[in-house]
C-alpha cells in the first residue's frame, strides 16, 4: 500500500510502469528537427529529453563537466551538447551531419532525425524528411521568419511530411510577448499556401528555460495550445499509404526447397489477405495470394509495415525488383517518369545525364530526358527554367529508363513513388527522386520550347503578370506560325516567287515572336479593360 502511494506521488515511476506493461501498444513517430544554425535546435531537443527525464545521470554529469557548470540551476546547462556528435562538429559548435536520436515516453517511441540547418547541408535535411511524419521547425523569436525557415518548411512539405510544428524559440529573450509570436505565425501562414496539404501548429517555447517544451509555461498564459511533447505524443502517425492500395516490392525470392517459392518484402501500401487477386508488375501477370508467411505463423491479413513472405497460387515468373500490387488498383508501368529531383551530386545535373536508378527494389539505367526546371526554394518554390541543377537544388525533369518499371505518384505512396539516382562511376547516391507522374505518355512539362523561346522565358522571369509566361510564349509561337504561314501565302501570291516569300516568312518568325511576346507582356501588365 505504501509503495502504491509512493508511486502515485511519483509520476515518473508510474509512467515507467506504464511503459513496461503497455509497450506493445506504443506507436512509433519519426520526426525531423530542423532550424537555422543559431535558432537553438540542439538545445531544444536536449531540453526535451532532460525535462522528460530521459537523460541518464552519467550523461548529465558529462554535460555539467562540458558546460563547466558542476553545480547550479538547470537552465545554465548547455543542452545542445547532448546532441552534437562528431569531434569536428563539437569544435565548430554546429551540427554538420544528420544524427538520429531515440527516446520513448509512456505513449510513443520517437526516432528523431536531427538535421543541420545550413543550406549546404540541405541533403541531410531532405534525407531526414523522407521518412518523417512530422517536422519540427525552429524559429528564433528575435529574428523572426527567415528565408531558411521557409526553405525548411518547403523541403519538408515537398518530401511528404504532413505535420509541421513551428516552435518559436527564445521567447524568454523577447519577454514572452504574444505579439512577437502572433507576427511570426501570421508571416508563416501568409506563405503556407505554397506547402499544400499540411497541418500547421505554432508553439511558443524557450529551450533555455523549458517553457512549453514538456512543462506548460507559467510565463505565457496567453498560449492555450499543446506543449511540444503533447503535440509529439498525439499527432496522427499513420502513413498515408496505409489507406491506399496493396503494394509490396519483392526483395528476395526464397527457395529453401524444390517445392517452396516465397516472395519476401515489406508491405508498402494498403493491406493484403490470402485469396486476394494481385498483379505482378511490370510483367502484368495476374495471380492470387496463397499464404502470408512469417516466422511467427501465417497471417490472415497483413496491413502496411511488416516484412513478410508471400506465396502465390500460380507458378508465375517473379523476381527481385517486381512489385506485387492490388489487381484492382495497380501501379503504373512506364519507362518515362516526370519527377521532382533533389540533386546532391558534386557537379551539375544536366539533360542527358546517365545514372543507375533504384526504385523500390528495382534497378535500371536512367537518362535525364528533356529540359530541367528549377524549383527555387529561395523564391517560395517558384518554378523557373534552368539549364541544369546545382548541388542542393530541387527541380522537375523527365527520366527515361532502359526498361519499364512499376511506380506510383509520390503523393500516393512514398515507397513505390520514390527513387535514388546513383552515379555509375563513383557509385555515390547523387539524387533523390519523387515521382509526379508515371505513364507511357509522360511528357516533358511544359511543352518543349525552342532555344529562342528558352531565352525569352528567362527574360520573362523579370516580369510578374497574371498570364503565365509559358502561356504567353505558347501564344506567341502559335500566333507566329499561323501569321507567318499567312505571310508566306500572301508573299507567294503577290511575288510569285516561293523563295522570296519563304525568306520573308522565316525572318519574320524570328523577329515577331519576340515582338509579340513583349507586346503581350506589356498588355498583361495593363489592368484596363479586364473584366
Amino acid at each position, binding site marked *: 500500500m505504501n509503495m502504491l502511494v509512493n508511486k502515485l506521488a511519483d509520476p515518473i515511476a508510474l509512467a515507467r510502469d506504464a511503459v513496461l506493461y503497455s509497450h506493445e501498444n506504443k506507436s512509433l513517430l519519426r520526426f525531423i528537427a530542423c532550424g537555422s544554425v543559431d535558432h537553438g535546435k540542439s538545445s531544444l531537443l536536449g531540453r526535451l529529453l532532460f525535462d522528460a527525464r530521459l537523460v541518464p545521470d*552519467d550523461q548529465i554529469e558529462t554535460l555539467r563537466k562540458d558546460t563547466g557548470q558542476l553545480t547550479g540551476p538547470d537552465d545554465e546547462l548547455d543542452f545542445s551538447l547532448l546532441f552534437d556528435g562528431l569531434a569536428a562538429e563539437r569544435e565548430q559548435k554546429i551540427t554538420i551531419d544528420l544524427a538520429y536520436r531515440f527516446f*520513448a515516453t509512456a505513449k510513443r517511441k520517437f526516432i528523431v532525425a536531427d538535421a543541420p540547418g545550413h543550406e549546404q547541408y540541405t541533403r541531410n535535411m531532405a534525407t531526414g524528411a523522407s521518412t518523417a511524419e512530422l517536422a519540427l521547425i525552429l524559429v528564433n523569436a528575435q529574428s523572426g521568419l527567415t528565408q531558411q525557415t521557409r526553405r525548411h518548411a518547403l523541403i519538408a512539405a515537398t518530401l511528404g511530411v504532413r505535420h509541421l510544428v513551428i516552435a518559436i524559440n527564445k521567447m524568454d529573450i523577447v519577454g514572452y510577448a504574444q505579439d512577437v509570436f502572433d507576427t511570426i505565425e501570421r508571416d508563416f501562414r501568409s506563405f503556407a499556401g505554397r506547402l499544400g496539404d499540411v497541418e500547421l501548429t505554432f508553439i511558443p517555447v524557450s529551450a533555455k528555460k523549458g517553457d512549453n517544451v514538456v512543462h506548460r509555461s507559467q510565463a505565457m498564459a496567453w498560449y492555450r495550445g499543446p506543449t511540444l511533447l503533447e503535440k509529439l505524443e498525439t499527432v496522427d502517425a499513420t502513413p498515408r499509404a496505409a489507406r491506399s492500395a496493396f503494394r509490396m516490392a519483392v526483395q528476395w525470392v526464397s527457395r529453401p526447397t524444390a517445392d517452396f517459392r516465397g516472395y519476401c518484402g*515489406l508491405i508498402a501500401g494498403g493491406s493484403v489477405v490470402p485469396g486476394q487477386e494481385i498483379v505482378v508488375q511490370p510483367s502484368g501477370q495476374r495471380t492470387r495470394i496463397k499464404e502470408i508467411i512469417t516466422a511467427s505463423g501465417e497471417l490472415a491479413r497483413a*496491413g502496411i509495415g511488416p516484412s513478410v513472405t508471400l506465396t502465390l497460387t500460380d507458378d508465375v515468373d517473379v523476381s527481385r525488383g517486381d512489385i506485387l500490387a492490388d489487381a484492382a488498383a495497380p501501379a503504373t508501368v512506364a519507362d518515362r517518369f516526370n519527377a521532382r529531383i533533389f540533386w546532391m551530386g558534386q557537379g551539375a545535373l544536366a539533360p542527358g545525364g546517365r545514372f543507375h536508378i533504384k526504385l523500390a527494389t528495382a534497378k535500371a539505367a536512367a537518362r535525364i530526358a528533356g529540359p530541367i526546371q528549377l524549383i527555387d526554394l529561395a523564391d517560395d518554390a517558384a518554378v523557373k527554367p534552368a539549364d541544369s541543377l546545382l548541388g542542393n537544388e530541387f527541380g522537375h525533369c523527365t527520366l527515361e529508363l532502359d526498361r519499364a518499371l512499376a511506380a506510383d505518384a509520390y503523393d500516393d505512396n512514398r515507397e513505390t513513388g520514390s527513387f535514388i539516382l546513383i552515379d555509375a562511376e563513383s557509385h*555515390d547516391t547523387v539524387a533523390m527522386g519523387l515521382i509526379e507522374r508515371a505513364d507511357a505518355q509522360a511528357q516533358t512539362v511544359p511543352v518543349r520550347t525552342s532555344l529562342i523561346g528558352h531565352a525569352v522565358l528567362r527574360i520573362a522571369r523579370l516580369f510578374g503578370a497574371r498570364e503565365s509566361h509559358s502561356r504567353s510564349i505558347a501564344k506567341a509561337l502559335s500566333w507566329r506560325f499561323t501569321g507567318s504561314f499567312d505571310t508566306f501565302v500572301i508573299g507567294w501570291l503577290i511575288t510569285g516567287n516561293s523563295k522570296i516569300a519563304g525568306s520573308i516568312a522565316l525572318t519574320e518568325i524570328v523577329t515577331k515572336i519576340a515582338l509579340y511576346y513583349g507586346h503581350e507582356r506589356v498588355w498583361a501588365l495593363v489592368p484596363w479593360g479586364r473584366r
Partner: protein
Amino acid sequence: MNDITFTTAQARSSYLDQLEAEAIHIMRETVAETEKPVMLYSIGKDSSVLLHLAQKAFYPGKLPFPVLHVDTTWKFREMIEFRDARARELGLDLIVHINQDGVKRGIGPFTHGSELHTDVMKTQGLRQALDLHGFDAAIGGARRDEDKSRAKERIFSFRNAHHRWDPKRQRPEPWRLFNAEKRKGESIRVFPLSNWTELDVWLYILRENIPVVPLYFAKPRPVVSRGGTLIMVDDERLPLEPGEEPQLRNVRFRTLGCYPLTGAVDSNATTLDDIIRETLDSRFSERAGRVIDKDGAASMERKKQEGYF
C-alpha cells in the same frame, strides 16, 4: 499475437513490430545486393536479437550467410559456452577467428593495455577475418543510441580497402533505398539495429523469448573493484594486486566483451522483467561500464575510423 495484431485493417502494429520489419528489410537487402555477406556474432544481447531476426528474415529457409565470431581469447567463459551451444542448436555455419599474430605476440589487456589489446585482437582480427574469407558485407548489431559517433553512421556504412570509415564521405540514405554499390576494394558494414535502443532490445528479447548469455542476469560472482569498475575474476589470468581478495557480489552485466574490460553492476535482476525494470529505472547509460570507451574523448569515433566495427 499476430492474430490479434492484424484482425482489422485499421490495426496498427506496435513500434517493436516496426523495428523488426525494418531490420528484416535491411538484412534481405544486404543479401540481395551483396556478393558474400557475413553476420558478425559477438554473443551479446544485440547479437542474439540479430540472429533471431535473421532467422525470421529467411524463414522457412536457412540463414543465407555464415556467422563470424572474432574471438579475442579474453571473452567470458560463459560466452564461449553459450556461443557453441547456440551454433549447435541452430545449425549455424559458425566461423571463429582468432588473430594468431596477436596470440604469438602474447597481446593481452593486462600486459599491453586495453587500447592495444582491443586494436590487435578485435579490430585487426576482424579485418583479417573479412579479408581472409573475402566478405564484402558484414552485418553487425551496433545501435545508434550506443554512442554519439554511431548516431550519425548510416545503416549501410562503407569502409575503404583499409577498412577505414570516413564520416565525411557518407552516402545519404533517404526512404528505405539503400545503395549497396561498392567502389573497388570497399566493403560494407550493415547495421539493422541502428534504430533500436537498449530498452527495445530487452523488450524484444522478452517478447520473442530469445535466449541470452546468463551473465546478463544477477547472481553472486567473484569480483574485484578497479578504479570504481567491478571486474569479474573469470579465470586465473587476472593478476591480483597484493592483498587483493575477490569478493562475492550479486552482479550482472549490461554489456559483454572481454572480461577484464567489462564492468559489472550491482543488481538483483534475475529475470527479464527485472532487467527491463532496471533498464527503465537506470540513471546510467549502457556503455558507462565499458573500459575502452573511456580512453579519451571522441575515442569511439577514432576507433571506428581505424576500422573498429
